[in-house]
């Protein structure tokens, strides 16, 4: 098995996550798809780290995880705030600027 298979898998997961962000309506599901994209990028980091034989990729992946955790915390707080005022977690309902 070629090590590039991990990169193919990472590309596939990233693309599927991107489709999810565009297609889904529920803000929480959109958020999960963003997480999927971050995870796919992490897999690419780890694979490149192994490919190049140094640990810099793993350190980058570690930082990505920390930033993703921050992003989840703040993003979910925003979703809760929006849900509290509008009783909906659908991204279509948050169209205040349109009207």
């Amino acid at each position, binding site marked *: *098995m*070629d*090590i*590039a298979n*991990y990169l*193919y*898998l990472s*590309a*596939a*997961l*990233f*693309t*599927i996550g*991107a*489709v*999810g962000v*565009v*297609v*889904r*309506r*529920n803000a*929480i*599901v959109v958020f*999960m798809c963003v*997480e*999927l994209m971050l*995870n796919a990028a*992490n*897999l690419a980091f*780890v*694979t490149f*780290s*192994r*490919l*190049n*034989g*140094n*640990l810099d990729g*793993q*350190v980058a*992946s*570690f*930082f990505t*995880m*920390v*930033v*993703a*955790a921050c992003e*989840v*915390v*703040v993003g*979910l*707080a925003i*979703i*809760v*705030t929006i849900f*509290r005022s509008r009783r909906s*977690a*659908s991204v*279509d309902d948050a169209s205040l600027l349109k009207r």
Partner: protein
Amino acid sequence: MLNLALQLGQTKTPEAILFWILAPMSVLAALGMLVVKKAVHSALLLAWIMISLAFFYIAQDALFLGIVQIVVYTGAVMMLFLFILMLVGVDASDSLVETIKGQRATSITAAIGFGGLLLSLIGRATVGHSAFGLAESNVKGNVQSLAESLFTKYVWAFEVVSALLITAALGSMVLAHSQKLKSRTLQRDLSAARFRGKSLSTAAGLPSSGVYARHNAVDVPALLPDGTPAPTSISATLKARGDMLDQKIFELEVKEVEED
């Protein structure tokens, strides 16, 4: 020489088996995330993908990241997602109807193009060498080597990230904090409202639930003097949930008592 290079670039058989079992399943789970209706199911599929990725990390000599992936992602992040789902409503299902015309077809076409671009780039890219592997870098152990580079070369980034974590925690607390817009209604206010309302029929409070010989619970309605059940004797929440007991059994018993 070429053969040796090819061998180094190839992963060993157990890893190949692991990959070919877990990779298709995680891709299927990712596709499932796009089509399942309930957000909870999406969350479970995502948790599955994250666990598979943890296996891949460990298989690729990233032991620390594999463990962190399980602890941080499937442990903390997914738990947070499930908490928020509980808060927002577990059954808050997504309508899969397109609201913008042609958006789905366009996005899928774009995604196929993007994915094809990525795949072809990866397929054609050459790093100029076969995989080095991490045996050399991990001589002192993966965690020790990672810590060494984290606290020397990347110490500044590490500090910045710690500041980011604190900021995020504070920010989420500020965002999730809600101010009370009006004061709480006290028991005294409720009592005044009962007497100043339109009718005095509920001035003494709502009737309590039914008390029968065989049933004494909040989910059975009390009976009015004419034998009909009193709907106000059951909590509105129980009624909405459909947790009311059928009162017909009790009506019959009441008739028997009357005949006696």
